[in-house]
């Protein structure tokens, strides 16, 4: 098999996940997109491990580790999302801008209108 096929598929999947992370509003959908990106990296790791055939099988071992870390990440991430949802009644990531820097301190009315909208 040409190595280009899995590599191109992994690149495209990664960019799909990148789009999802940037464009989605619900935090759980952002987590799904992160899973897609991790899976793209896993596909790359497996393909290159099968190509290189080293005795340590570093690619496949790292893939297993990434899968376990993704499971841990999704557990912690969902716990955080649930906590934010309980506190705010919403899990939209672009509404959580309390720590954002105020761009123009002399225009508080416009800022407040934007926050409420």
């Amino acid at each position, binding site marked *: *098999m*040409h*190595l*280009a*096929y*899995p590599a191109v*598929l992994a*690149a*495209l*999947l*990664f960019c*799909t*996940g990148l*789009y*999802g992370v*940037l*464009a989605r*509003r*619900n935090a*759980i*959908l952002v987590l*799904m*997109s992160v*899973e*897609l990106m991790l*899976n793209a990296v*896993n596909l790359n790791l*497996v*393909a290159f*491990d*099968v*190509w290189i*055939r*080293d005795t340590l*099988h570093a690619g*496949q*071992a790292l*893939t297993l580790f990434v*899968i376990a870390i*993704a*499971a841990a*990440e*999704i*557990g*912690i991430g*969902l*716990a955080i*999302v*649930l*906590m934010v*949802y*309980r*506190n*705010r*009644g919403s*899990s939209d*990531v672009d*509404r959580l801008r309390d720590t954002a820097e105020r761009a123009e301190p002399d225009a508080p009315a416009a800022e*407040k209108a934007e926050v*409420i909208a």
Partner: protein
Amino acid sequence: MSLAATAATATAAAERGFLSPTGVEITFVLVGLVTLGAAMVTVTTRQLVHAALWLVMALGGLAVEYLLLTAEFIAWVQVLIYIGSVVVLLLFGLMLTKAPIGRSPDADSGNRPVALAVALAAAAALVWVVVDAFRTTWIGLDGPAQGSTEVSGRFLFRNWVLPFEALSVLLLAALVGAIALSRKNGGAAKNGGAAKVDRTAKVDSAADEDSGTPGASGKEQR
């Protein structure tokens, strides 16, 4: 040895063009198209639960790709952990945050065009570089399986024992952390409902409110 193998694969790839694909390659491309399509629907659909179900399809397609790359153990781990637990966790999360069942028109945030531009630019750059670099590289899938369960167990418990154990500790810590996070403000659900009602009034002072609410609710509980 590695150099010799690389040279051998290079010569093997030189006589195998992209226009005469093998059966494995055809299968890989077809399953890859399905996977990519499912992933794209996952990140673009407006129905949140459907996104999770399409994610199942994308992850299952990736498991098939692992099988085609002879990484059999990882394929089954993928099915078990991703499809079996991660997607179920995501569905639980969707239900617990009261995700709307039908279409939700605000599933995408306002920076969608920017995200599309960034993703397209990244895709073009990555695909160009990858194709340019690995145009002539050939993976020999014949011979003994690279990722059967026996081989995986051997390399995992012979060469990777310490990272494996450290990872199990990390997983334990993460799960304990998740339990602690979701349990710490068990009493805040009542206040969450109250906070939701007058949320619009409190959004601009939300930082003060949120630092105050869990402590207050904890005191009330005790």
